[in-house]
C-alpha cells in the first residue's frame, strides 16, 4: 500500500477546486502570518515599560523605513482579508446563505454555490481595500 495523502500541499494544489478553496488558502496564510506577527508586536510595544527613551529609540528604528512601511501595509492587507473572509465564514457557519436541505435533483446546486455571492463580495471589498491602502500608504513608501 502507498499513501495518497499529500499533507499541507493539498491546501494549495489539491485538484480542480471551487473558488472557496483558494479563499481557504489565503485565509490560512494570512492567519498564520498574523499569529506569527502578534508576539513580535507584543515584544516591540512592551518596550514602553523601559521608559519613554527606549520606546522612542525602537520606534525610530522600526517605524520610519520604507521597508517597515511595506511590512505595515502587508499587515493591514492581511488583517483586512482575514477579517472580511472571516465574516463570510461566521455567517455561513451559522447556517446563513447556504440554503436548506432539499432532495438532490440533477444538476446539483450545493451550499457552496449558494453562498458564492458572499465570496465575490469578500473579494471585491478586499480589492477595494487594497487599492485604497496603496493610495493611503504611498506617501510613506516613497518617503
Amino acid at each position, binding site marked *: *500500500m502507498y499513501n495518497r495523502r499529500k499533507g499541507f500541499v*493539498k491546501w494549495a494544489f489539491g485538484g*480542480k477546486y471551487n473558488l472557496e478553496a483558494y479563499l*481557504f488558502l489565503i485565509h490560512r496564510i494570512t492567519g498564520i502570518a498574523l499569529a506569527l506577527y502578534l508576539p513580535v508586536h507584543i515584544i516591540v510595544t512592551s518596550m514602553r515599560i523601559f521608559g519613554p527613551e527606549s520606546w522612542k529609540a525602537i520606534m525610530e528604528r522600526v517605524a520610519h523605513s520604507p521597508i517597515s512601511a511595506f511590512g505595515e501595509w502587508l499587515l493591514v492587507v492581511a488583517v483586512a482579508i482575514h477579517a472580511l473572509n472571516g465574516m463570510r465564514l461566521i455567517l455561513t457557519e451559522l447556517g446563513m446563505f*447556504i440554503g436548506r*436541505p432539499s432532495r*438532490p435533483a440533477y444538476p446539483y446546486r450545493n451550499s*457552496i454555490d449558494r453562498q458564492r455571492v458572499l465570496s465575490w463580495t469578500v473579494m471585491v471589498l478586499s480589492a477595494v481595500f487594497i487599492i485604497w491602502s496603496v493610495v493611503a500608504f504611498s506617501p510613506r513608501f516613497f518617503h
Partner: protein
Amino acid sequence: MEKVKDVVFRILRYSPEDGKPTWSEYEVPVIKGMTVLQGLFHIKETQDPTLSFRASCRMGVCGSCAMKVNGKHILACQTQILKLHADVLNVEPLSNYNVIKDLVPDLFPMFEKHATVKPYIIRYSDPEEFNDPTGEYLQLPDELEEYLQFSYCIKCGACVSACPVVSGDEDFLGPQALTQAYRYAVDTRDEGYIVDRDVVSDIVSGVFRCHFVGACSDACPKGVDPGMALQLLKKELFLNSFGLKRKKKTAGFHRIDFNAPPPPDAPKPPPKTVEG
C-alpha cells in the same frame, strides 16, 4: 454501435510488488453512452487483465467505483466518457487514502470514522421497542426534509478524498462521518442528539476543524452536500451550547397489530410458485 472516437486512458497503476505508482496508457474505442467504468472493463478484457478497480452495481448506488478523472471526483459508472470532452483521461485512485492496488483505495479509515459518530437511531425512552417492535414512529414531512438529503450518502469516499483538511490532518473525522452524525442527530426519532455523539465537538477530530472549503460538496456524486450538513451541525452545536435549541421529539407512535388478520379489501398475495 459505432465507434465515435478513440480516447486514451492514462491510469495510475500500482502494484504492491513493484512499489512505485506509474502511469500506463491504453487506447479505448468509445461508443456513444459508454461510461468510464465500461472503458476500464474494456481495457481489462482486451488489453491488460491485471488492471484492478472496484465496481459492483454499475448504477451509482453501491459507492464502489469513486475515482479521480482529470482531477475531478466521479463515480466511474455514472460518468459518460464523451461527456468529459477530453481525448486523454487521467484516471487516478482517490486521494487521502492508502492505495491497495491500481484504482482500489483502502476505505477502512472512513468506515471506522463513520462508526464513531453512532450512525443509527438511539432510543432511551422505549429501548424494548427495538428488539420487539410493536409499531412505527411518526414523522412529519418537514422533519423528514431536515435530513433526507444527507441520507442519500453511498459511502463512496469522494468527499473525504477532496477535503484539504483531512489531507492536513488524518484525525479529522471528515465530511462523510460528520454528515451522518448530523443526519441522525436531527432525526426526530433519535434521542442521542449531538450529546451522545460527542466526537463531533471534539477539538481535534470534530466539526470545528471544518473551514467550509466546499470541496466535499463539489465532489459528492450523489448531491448529498456534506458541506451544508457540517455547517448546520456547527449551528446546532452553537445554539445548543447556549441552550437555545433542544432536540425535537418524534411526532407520535402508531401501534400496529402485526398478528391481526388482513382487512377484507386488502390485495391478495400472489400465488406461490412451485420450486423447480
